[in-house]
């Protein structure tokens, strides 16, 4: 491990507490493996800074940088003094060869990202905006750990802005549709969460819309 460490030293970067490591919307081709300190991932949504994750040493972030010309999708801020290994397309393979643990971690991360993107694509293919939003809830439900109760009611720690983001529609339109769901008593809108009363009802709704769309 010691030899590996010296080999990695030249890829080492450090940040002071509060430093922005990268900013949402800026182009970027580096990604990072945290060695020490915590990194907060945030997104500015309207008037609030939304915490997406707090990452610990050993975790990777910015990995979407392997995508060509994709602007950063969130902002990374050092919560402590942070040291990290900085990867890019060029040094990527060297770093991987010496460290199968990192390689495996990335492999898992990519597996999840591919799935997320495919799922997002499925949501976007729906023409009907109500179906889109219902499908976002289905996607979020798929991410929840399976519950032991067979309840149809699911609480999501999410916001209208979040849902709008996934459905790629404006927050205003999203609020309008969710309010409509509230009026239909299918959804409860609370300050920090949204409750779907019957997730199976949403599943039926989405699959009907999808089928109807296919037969058009």
């Amino acid at each position, binding site marked *: 491990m010691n030899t590996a460490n010296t080999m990695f030293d030249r890829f080492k970067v450090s940040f002071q507490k509060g430093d922005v490591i990268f900013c949402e919307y800026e182009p970027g081709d580096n990604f990072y493996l945290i060695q020490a300190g915590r990194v907060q991932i945030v997104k500015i949504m309207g008037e609030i800074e939304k915490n997406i994750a707090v990452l610990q040493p050993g975790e990777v972030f910015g990995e979407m940088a392997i995508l060509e010309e*994709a602007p950063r999708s969130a902002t990374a801020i050092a919560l402590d003094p942070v040291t990290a290994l900085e990867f890019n397309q060029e040094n990527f393979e060297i770093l991987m060869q010496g460290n199968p643990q990192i390689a495996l971690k990335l492999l898992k991360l990519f597996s999840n990202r591919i799935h997320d993107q495919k799922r997002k694509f499925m949501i*976007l293919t729906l023409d009907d905006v109500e179906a889109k939003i219902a499908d976002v809830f289905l996607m979020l439900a798929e991410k929840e750990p399976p519950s032991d109760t067979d309840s149809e009611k699911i609480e999501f720690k999410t916001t209208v802005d979040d849902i709008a983001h996934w459905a790629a529609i404006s927050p205003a339109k999203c609020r309008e549709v969710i309010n409509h769901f509230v009026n239909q008593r299918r959804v409860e809108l609370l300050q920090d969460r949204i409750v779907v009363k019957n997730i199976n009802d949403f599943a039926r709704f989405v699959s009907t819309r999808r089928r109807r769309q296919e037969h058009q």
Partner: protein
Amino acid sequence: MSPKAIQYNANSIIFFKGDVSEKIYILKSGKVSLNYTDIETGQEIHDLIKTGEFFGVRSALGRYAREETALVLMDSNVIAFSVPEFEQLSSQNTRIVIKMLKVFSTQLRRIHKQVQNMIYSQEQVKPETGLYRIGEYYIKNNRYTQALYAYKRYLTYYPSGEYAADVTRKIERAEENLQKYGQGRGPAEAAAGSPQEIEKPAKSRELAGLAKLYYNAVSLVSQQKYQEAFGEFKKIATAGEDEEYVAKAQFEIGRCLYYLQQYDTCIKSFTALIQRYPKHPELAEALFFVGKCYEDKEERQKAKGFYTKILTLIKEEDPLYRKVKKAVRELEGS
């Protein structure tokens, strides 16, 4: 438990689309097809697995439902790994993982592009506007460090962008406030948030170019590349396009000289600055550098003289005050 060899007859199914399982397979012999519907075209796709190829990796590692049905076309032998077994194998053979990473990153790129195409045809914030808004958010909340990062990046990428002039002004204000009040403190940013009248485009473009030069040089200083930074500031100062930037660059030149340990030149440079701009916003700071030069030259009396002078110029709550106080204490102590 160890990886298991399994035989499948033709027309049997290894897994169905929608199954959840943590098994990863490698095809030893025979013929297996992965069947799925293309999400873009709706076409039924049949991907043949090559001998020696892994399949079922993504869904097993990501712990989500299978996205394909694995259909056995002729009698086949496969080896099934659990995720820990696969991890074990790949830790001994990084090549396999690197190869997979390449495949996955290509797949990720493709799907990401498809998603982006869908979104762009719908609604999306331009990166330029997005970056600007991030700076706006942080400045409103007095988080100067973060605001400065976003604004400076903005000028780097969009030096003649729509908000360049506004951003340039806000960088200055953020730096002042950071110095004056410190991170997280300061006035509510009502003033800065108010809409800005747009300057003449030509003027703003020029300024933005200058600002970019200036902030690039500042970033060289933070990377401790003083010699290079010195050269850049010198260019700005000699070009003399904008008095404000000349004054700012002149100050930075002195700073670089100090870090380059050229104390005599540094003292000259700051002295010239003070004479030319007696109301320079960084006046106290400039005097502090002069004091430090004398201190490093072992001319303690002179150093102390400059430090004492600074203390009469600034208020106690100025962050510099404490630094100077400390420097005086140390001079007296030694």
